């Protein structure tokens, strides 16, 4: 009977990660530090956003191109003002623990305070995680985006010009 239970446990653990990075990080670290804030924009809110953008509204000065929003499914922003370095390292360790799921977008050097990781599928980025540690303000910011972020999406983001042309 013990062997049966062990087999069942092993089988259940095959597919455990069914969350985005931010959820996993909050589960792990929010217990230890209650000062971590997580702002969530769900897919439902994203759709509402798209609706408001497509509705005629001459007053809005869109900073974010509609294309970018159309490719996003959800967004989560985690901020921490206390123990930011420790939390940054924990975030790095969580990524490292799941290196089968996340890969660095560019080669990360140790000691960098700004790291970008992606989860790709069929050459499209399904999840993007940015870890940013501001040593002057001692704040940690984690941006976790999910969606269908293709090359054009990344090109627009990398260009540094988000204002719509």
């Amino acid at each position, binding site marked *: *009977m013990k062997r*049966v239970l062990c*087999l*069942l446990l092993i*089988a*259940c653990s*095959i*597919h455990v*990660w*069914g*969350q*985005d990075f931010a*959820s996993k990080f909050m589960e792990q670290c929010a217990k230890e530090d209650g000062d971590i804030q*997580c*702002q*969530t*924009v*769900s*897919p*439902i*809110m994203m759709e*509402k*956003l798209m609706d*408001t953008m497509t509705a005629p509204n001459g007053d809005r000065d869109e*900073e*974010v191109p509609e294309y*970018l*929003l159309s490719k*996003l*499914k*959800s*967004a989560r*922003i985690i901020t921490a003002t206390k123990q930011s370095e420790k939390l940054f390292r924990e975030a790095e360790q969580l990524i490292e623990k799941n290196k089968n799921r996340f890969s660095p*977008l*560019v*080669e990360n*050097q140790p000691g*960098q305070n*700004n*790291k*970008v990781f992606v989860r790709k*599928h*069929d050459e499209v980025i*399904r999840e*993007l995680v*940015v870890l*940013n540690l501001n040593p002057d303000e001692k704040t940690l*910011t984690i*941006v976790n*985006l*999910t969606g269908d972020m293709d090359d054009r999406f*990344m090109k627009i*983001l*990398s*260009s*540094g010009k*988000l204002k719509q042309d």
Partner: protein
Amino acid sequence: MDYKYIEQLLERYWQCETSLEEEAILKTFFNQTHIPSHLMPYKPLFVSEKMWQDVKLGEDFDARIMAHIEKDEPVKARRITWVRRMMPLYKAAASVAIILTLGNAAQSSFRREATVENDYNYENYQDSYNDPEMAYNQISDALQMVSQSLSEASKQDSLLQMQPKETQKEQ
């Protein structure tokens, strides 16, 4: 009476030279009542053989054997616990559970490519903002940060790639 012949036969008996007829003669002699005293020590040897020959199965032997064979052994009452009774059911349920779990796990790993989008529990997401305008501002800030991070990361990467070329030039 002259027992010389018997004594000769005895000598031959110790040498294992006697025939069956001669041994029968010795047995007959020692089974009679009058035996000389100097030959008495040998009597039990020949008499015991006859005694064992006379041993036969009694008439009640068959009856005793059959009674022993057909004897019903008393059945001891055993208390069967509830757990023991349900054990076959538990085993069957465990087998089915294992098969279903392994099958589900295998199926989900095969379907992983098709259901990457379903990998996130969007149903559990709770919006931090009810106003789309505020959500828009948040996303705008987030994308700005991502953009800056990507630019920084690209610069770092290009610097690293340039370094080997610079060291070669120095050489």
